[in-house]
């Protein structure tokens, strides 16, 4: 009985101390909040759709090639950042971050994880893009 109480107390202390330490470190390391306007989820959801199936933008009907290229780079960067975020949020739920596998193997693994871990289709697209870049 005494041993049981001691083990219970030790486990509880370890769980509680890891939580308190983590929260303390989180408060210490929290960076300034990002500008929410710079990464709206609606834009990223639209970006997650394959580029060739997206409707053309109506804001700038005739962009010059340089602007289009710059816009494409911006899109790719935003997609990569969002893909990394989704990757950390979804894959880290169960296991450590895996490395990048060859693209065709990655496509299979993500199809498997869509079924196994029930990640959303949007998350799968973004993670696949991130993991195959």
């Amino acid at each position, binding site marked *: 009985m005494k*041993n*049981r109480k001691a*083990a*219970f107390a*030790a*486990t*509880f202390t*370890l*769980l509680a101390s*890891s*939580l308190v*330490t*983590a*929260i303390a*470190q*989180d408060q210490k*390391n*929290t960076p300034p909040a990002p500008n929410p306007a710079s990464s709206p*989820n609606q834009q990223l*959801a639209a970006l997650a759709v*394959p580029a*060739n199936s997206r409707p053309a933008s109506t804001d700038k009907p005739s962009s010059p090639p340089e602007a289009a290229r710059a816009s494409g780079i911006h899109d*790719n960067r935003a997609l990569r950042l969002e893909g990394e975020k989704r*990757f950390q*949020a*979804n894959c*880290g*739920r*169960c*296991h*450590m*971050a*895996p*490395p*990048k*596998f*060859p*693209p*065709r*193997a990655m*496509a*299979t*693994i993500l*199809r*498997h994880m*869509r*079924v*196994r*871990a*029930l*990640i*959303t*289709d*949007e998350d799968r*697209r973004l993670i*696949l*893009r991130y*993991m*195959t*870049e």
Partner: protein
Amino acid sequence: MLKNHRGWLLLATALLLQALPTGQVFAQSSDSPPPNTQSSYDQSQDPEAIKPVPVLQTSAAFQTVFDAGETHIHPLLTPVLLVPFGSRWLFEARGTFESDLAQQPGVSGFHGVVQKEEEYAQLDFIASPYMTVTVGRFLTPFGIFNERLYPVWIRNLASDPLTLPIGIGPSNASTGAMIRGGFKANEHFNINYAVYYSTLLTVSPMDSNRFAGGRAGIFIPKARLEIGGSYQHLLQDDHSNLFGFHMAWQPPKLPLNLRAETARSSVGSGYWVESVYGLTQVPFAQNQLRHTQVVARMQQFFTGPVPANSVLPVNTNMFEFGVNYYFMDGLRAMSSYGRQFAPQGNGNVWTLALTYRLVTPLGRGEVQ
């Protein structure tokens, strides 16, 4: 004994040969962000256009367990085969080859038999972004441990939770059909669900019970918090209901992972809570500590009114502490100490283990 040795030799040879055709194997990373590898492709290409290739993933473990004065050696090999068809189909199967080698009175050395099991073999059809239909033999989605955390390269402690046998059937799997999916409900959370039916199968070791059930969960990506519940109704024996709840939380920016599960049934009830803390933010000895994680788990099991062989026969409490170290991608050393409290006596369980996981594309992995 010789036969067993020959069996393991064959398995080891098969494992080595598996790596030869492509000349490359890819293993799990420890904690760092995914590095750029040699497998990049033209970024202008749509990732959706990538044609998937069959993949063989193999995890292996060598565990030594000191349980109440007895030493057991558990070699384990688990191949997972993934074969995609077209853009919507996937066949997946997992087998296990394992043994429990122990010393026998009057005989030197460790002895045991190799056990082979087909854990699941299922065909998935991705019907829509919201729904996947699965038929065949599949892991029963009751709670999260059986489906997601069971593989030896994923779990943080070598032993199973005491409540694992509750709700997953006699061989951890169901035989029948399932509908499942995950979708974004709004900007703040996703919903995932699984509904299944399993038929009675008495062919060991692929036996399954007749039951129907479901699991639903909510995942809040911003908080990295998932909570959910499971329900199952037995369509045989006592026709009882089973309930379960699960929680998983990984605070953003923190190397902390909290998971918990509870299960209630007529054969028994209980819960487990697990905390895993990676020492990546400790300000000293970074080279060593960033590969290290500390694990603690507490669990309780209470027997139910209906006796069953699949669960413990007496009320049991267990506390476990572990330290894991990642040597390199996929190669991990595990160590743990557990203290088990039961009416017939208390006991210590020490575990040492090595786990490894590798991925082999069965074909050309690069995009042409």
